[in-house]
């Protein structure tokens, strides 16, 4: 519980504004606040790595050469909505922040979105998953960059049912994020003719999953869908191995699994897991080159899709500021929607009217230990989901901005 916000600024790039070229930049400096979980559950998959990614974007954009002054602030919202909204208020009111970036945890995303709209600034979400940000809570001040619950449910659900996994049992974290992930996946499964044999909602967080796993086992469903995240998912898979779930012929489908989770589990336990992500470091030469640069700056850890998304989003934001010649929140956001995006990480993409950034998503399968050539060599691509099918259609979201 803390008000936050009075943070130590990290000056990423310093340059004097040349002449009057950037007269519309407030205080002559673009202030970006990276708000995420610096020490809790989501610290590894976003956390300090997202700050590294933001700094890389500022460098690669060449802000200094273009005479743009960019300053990066960092704060830890501890995954608590009231901490997040306090920090956001103080950032906008006192520190004159122009953009808030990253923001894991759906509840905090919605709270910060509220404040951003009230103060008429800009918000770009990469790690947060709530599909409401581009649905009923959509705003002219916000963009959702990397993924959302719908795209995960759609990617993993479709692929698994099509490959024969037509009976499901859900292990759902008992809170809004878990429920929405479960409902969206269930819809996909039913649409494709699959069946849901049962579901169990476990308290969040749960250290012990054995009781729920046992219920999944007795259900005899082919697929156990994990509608949870972080430590809960890791525990479920780990304890699943102990109870012989996979040996007994059932399979896990992780609905939100990050590279760092697989790293923590080890291939031995995670092998064969299907998962949907927007990015993997070993996709093509560009992603490899970028990721290796990232790893050098971040204790050797490869980037997750959340961190890659922060880079991609920040780069596009700076391009839009340059094109719009202002850092005024809604104007930059509008510009970002107008311009197509392109970068070495996500390739080509585009921001829709509802604030959804669309790009290809990928279905991965976790490699067997024997297939892996070394650390971080974890995924093989099973399918590419084209951008126009990877996200919820604009009309279905109920976003008032879509006419």
């Amino acid at each position, binding site marked *: *519980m803390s008000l936050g*916000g009075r943070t130590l600024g990290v000056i990423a790039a310093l340059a004097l504004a040349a002449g009057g070229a950037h007269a519309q930049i407030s205080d002559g400096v673009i202030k970006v606040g990276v708000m995420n979980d*610096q020490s809790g559950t989501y610290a590894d998959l976003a956390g300090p790595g997202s700050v590294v990614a933001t700094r890389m974007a500022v460098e690669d954009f060449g802000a200094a050469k273009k005479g743009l002054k960019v300053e990066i602030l960092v*704060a830890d919202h501890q995954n*608590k909505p*009231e901490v997040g909204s306090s920090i956001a208020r*103080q950032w906008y*009111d006192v520190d004159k922040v122009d953009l808030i970036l990253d923001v894991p945890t759906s509840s905090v995303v919605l*709270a910060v979105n*509220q404040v951003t709209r009230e103060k008429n600034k800009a918000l770009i979400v990469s790690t947060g998953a709530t599909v409401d940000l581009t649905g009923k809570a959509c705003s002219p001040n916000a963009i959702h960059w990397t993924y959302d619950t719908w795209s995960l449910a759609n990617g993993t659900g479709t692929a698994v049912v099509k490959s024969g996994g037509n009976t499901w049992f859900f292990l759902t974290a008992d809170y809004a994020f878990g429920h929405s992930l479960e409902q969206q996946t269930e819809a996909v499964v039913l649409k494709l003719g699959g069946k849901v044999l049962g579901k169990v909602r476990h308290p969040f967080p749960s250290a012990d999953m054995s009781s729920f796993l046992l219920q999944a086992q007795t259900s005899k469903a082919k697929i156990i869908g994990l509608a949870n995240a972080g430590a809960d998912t890791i525990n479920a898979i780990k304890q699943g191995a102990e109870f012989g779930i996979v040996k007994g012929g059932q399979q896990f489908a992780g609905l939100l699994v990050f590279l760092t989770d697989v790293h923590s589990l080890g291939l031995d336990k995670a092998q064969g897991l299907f998962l949907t992500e927007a990015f993997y470091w070993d996709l093509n030469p560009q992603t490899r080159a970028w990721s290796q640069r990232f790893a050098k700056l971040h204790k050797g850890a490869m980037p997750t899709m959340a961190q890659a998304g922060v880079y991609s989003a920040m780069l596009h934001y700076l391009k839009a500021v340059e094109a719009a010649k202002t850092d005024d929140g809604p104007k930059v956001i509008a510009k970002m929607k107008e311009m197509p995006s392109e970068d070495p990480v996500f390739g080509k993409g585009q921001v829709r009217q509802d604030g959804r950034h669309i790009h290809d998503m990928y279905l991965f399968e976790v490699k067997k230990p024997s297939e892996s050539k070394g650390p971080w060599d974890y995924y093989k691509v099973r399918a590419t989901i084209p951008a126009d099918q990877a996200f919820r259609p604009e009309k279905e979201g109920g976003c008032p901005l879509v006419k």
Partner: protein
Amino acid sequence: MATTVSAMAGSLPRAQSSLHQRVAFLVMVAFFAIGPLVIYPLFLMKVMCFALFACAFNLLLGYVGLLSFGHAMFLGTAGYVAAHTAKAGLTVGGFKFLGASVPVLLQLPPFNPEFAVLFGAAAACLLGIVSGLIAIRRQGIYFAMITLALAQMVYFFCVQAPFTGGEDGIQAVPRGKLFGTIDLSDVTAMYVTVFVIFISGFLLIYRIIHSPFGQVLKAIRENEARAVSLGYDVDRYKLLAYVLSATLSGVAGATNALVFQLAALNGVYWTMSGEVVLMTLLGGLGTVFGPAAGALVLLSIENYLALLGSWVTIAQGCIFVACVLTFRRGIVGELGRALKKSL
């Protein structure tokens, strides 16, 4: 402003308040009156809410000697109730229970802020009566454990109950118009409102402490057996103090929810209960001004360390250990000792 300040100082009961207490009160009022010119007002509003919370808590720990480790349940519940009534009004009935659907018995439109706060406080009061009846029968560590466990039940209830919005909390709570006329979305109006609530709450607690009722509470703290032998119904006194403390905590929680336009799970979690203990301990147990000072100092530290996430917990832990081992009188307690005055 100066006239109001001196008028408020005058409202301290003359007979019981000594000069130095009035001076300290003036300093505090002046700090919160001039503060927003230099310090971020939202932060000061938060300090006032938590200062009131800590003062209410101190009423129980400092003057009755009961350590509640579950006071967050009052802060949080009142916050939820105030936020809900301010945002959606109140609906009684209209749900399904055991298959039978209960008709809508009562439906009220969104509450004005003053009613939202009152309603929140009433909810905390009710919770105080229920939990008090269970907890008050034990003392010391037992009391601490029982309140902790009761608060944990409330926490799980809030996680599950549909109206609390689970881990999203209740967001975008409108601050509304005070008495239907004063728009609280204006920072100054909101600040003055919080200021008035805090000062009134503070004075009320001051009155309680110095009333005959307060004297009986102190007698219970010093020697419960003697109080019983003098014919006092100790349990009733304790329960009343507990409920008063709960209600005032509720006022603090409800106000806080309006200020931040948000009520979330953090408010009912047990770490919040620990935090208020820490504020009171740091400021000075059983002192009049200690809890407020403790709230200010602790929140400033947290604010400064916010970037560093887990360093906040480490700092809190260190303060706890230091207070318990070497600094048991707290800031104001030590100050009072140095000045040889009770503050």
